[in-house]
């Protein structure tokens, strides 16, 4: 009998992925790819032409996202995805600008840009893959690493306290704020759609495992992390944002917490400056 090799099925997101760049760099067991896929499905489902999208990433494992999406995409410098995205948005406000990056990138080195873009209500969508660690550089402590968790620079446990990211985003002025885990692909995709529809600064935190550089050191196997995401999370969209600290013992709160209307920066600028000039 003659064996014929089965033709592989096309990837459902083939039109949105740079197939010539696959395989990607993400480790097996990494959550980043799932977050990325959920984000792509939202883009696809939005029905908006792909030419009206632009993705910007900083540096890190998650920051490689921009390298795989088949829209105009920018892999910038560490921490600076948001100001790059700001330049794009303000120079061409019709574009949908998505920032896809890591917790270290967006909240340590890039923290100042984050709060200012939120304060301005810059109409961009920021998706943060929060793996609680600096994955790419080998597992150093991040601004999101839980107190007492181990990292390669806090071998005996993190002496610091992490940010509560949704609270920070809200306090800074974000008009859409959500948190999900990478297990919640459907919810992530819905959140990204809502974020795209929200004319303002949108922030989606997605908890995602880094089994290599966080799990290993903290005695948490990849599947155990997923179990925590499944068993120890509570969906509560009307939650008090100040109670969103990440503590799996108490239960981590997920949801689409904030979705409000407020004029975006480009709308305000154009109203005050271009309307009067014209």
């Amino acid at each position, binding site marked *: 009998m003659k064996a014929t090799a089965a033709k592989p099925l096309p990837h459902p997101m083939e039109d949105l992925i740079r197939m010539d760049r696959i395989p990607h760099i993400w480790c097996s067991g990494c959550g980043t790819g799932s977050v990325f896929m959920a984000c792509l499905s939202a883009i696809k489902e939005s029905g908006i032409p792909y030419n009206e999208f632009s993705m910007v990433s900083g540096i890190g494992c998650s920051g490689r996202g921009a390298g795989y999406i088949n829209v105009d995409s920018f*892999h*910038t410098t560490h921490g*600076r995805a948001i100001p790059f995205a*700001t*330049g*794009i948005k303000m*120079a061409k406000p019709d574009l949908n600008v998505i920032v896809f990056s890591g917790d270290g990138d967006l909240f340590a080195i890039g923290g100042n840009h984050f709060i200012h873009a939120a304060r301005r209500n810059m109409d961009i969508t920021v998706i943060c893959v929060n793996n609680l660690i600096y994955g790419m550089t080998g597992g150093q402590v991040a601004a999101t690493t839980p107190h007492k968790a181990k990292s390669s620079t806090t071998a005996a446990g993190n002496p610091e306290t992490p940010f509560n990211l949704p609270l920070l985003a809200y306090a800074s002025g974000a008009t859409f704020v959500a948190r999900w885990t990478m297990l919640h692909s459907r919810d992530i995709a819905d959140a990204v759609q809502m974020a795209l529809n929200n004319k303002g600064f949108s922030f989606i935190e997605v908890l995602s495992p880094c089994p290599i550089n966080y799990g290993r050191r903290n005695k948490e196997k990849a599947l155990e992390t997923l179990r925590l995401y499944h068993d120890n999370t509570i969906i509560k969209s009307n939650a008090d944002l100040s109670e969103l600290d990440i503590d799996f013992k108490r239960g981590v709160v997920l949801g689409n917490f904030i979705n409000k209307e407020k004029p975006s920066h480009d709308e305000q600028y154009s109203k005050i400056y271009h309307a009067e000039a*014209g």
Partner: protein
Amino acid sequence: MKPAVLTGKHFINGDVACAEGAIAAGCKFFGGYPITPATEVAEHISERLPDVGGTFIQMEDEIAAMTSILGAAWTGAKTMTSTSGPGFSLMMETVGLAVVTETPCVVVNVQRAGPSTGLPTQGAQGDMMQAKWGSHGDYEIIAIAPSSPQEMFDFTIIAFNLSEKYRTPVFIMSDEIVGHMSEKVVIPKPSKIKTISRKKPKGPKNKFKLYKPDADGVAPMPAIGDGYKVHVTGLTHDEIGYPVMSIEAQEEMMTRLLGKIRNNIDDIIMTEQYLLDDADIVIVSYGVSSRTSYTAVDMAREKGVKAGLLRLITVWPFPDALIKELAQRVKGFITVEINLGQICREVQRCAGTDIPSYLAGHAGGAVVPPEDVLSIIKENF
């Protein structure tokens, strides 16, 4: 609403003239952060950009300002930022990103005396080497030094043209004295202003390679939304723009990046010469220091010393060949600059050790008086 080109005679300072030059050149986006003595550039352009449908944003720091102009540049806009020493330092990582992603943009540095906070309200030319080497890795940069408000206008247009033509960041290395001095500035008719815009790609979109150069070494540049689906990265990349982590890819990319400037130096380098033909002593200067250098040449000539001036309009790339050629026939060089010997080192590097080369300079805060040049001549020649 005012037009883009304010044709006529104006009495304005250098910073304002620079902003007007940018608008006349077609600048449509400015991301800034206030700093003395460059603040007036941002203030003035924030008023003017809306007239031409452009956008101004004051960012949270100079890193953000510099990064924002790169993002905006990829939408097809001509973009600019302005700063002084401390902000210039903060911009440096992003300057490297602009170089390697071949993103046209203009950065104005109205220099003040450094290091650190230094003398915020007093001029200097101490950032000249930082302009060349401030970001990590090897690269070539274009830097232009205006010496008057008129040149702040004229050279800003040249800076935009070079940045668009060569897809590279261009620095305008001004200083507090030129930035804050007010003089007559003549703005010509729009038809008399030559502006250049980046080449746009033609041909099929699916075959397009973002960094495949034309014969001139420069690749056409699409804008976001044009349908080319570009990927732009600061990682070492191939002609498509995709990251390739290999020695060969690094070599190929760097050869082209450096070559793009080095193979076009005849087009890029601009100098001015004054009484140089029969000169024994060459005074090399640039920016505000070239103003006092003209006086120094005249004073030397009055005393019977054959001095001449080589004024660098572009300081980077450096005119190696010209200095080498002069070194064959003159008795010595004096470099006039408001620092402790930055471009002077370049002159020495090119002139060699057989010929004397001196610095007329100081640590910053004021111009170099022509008398300083005269006393160097008196003591050594």
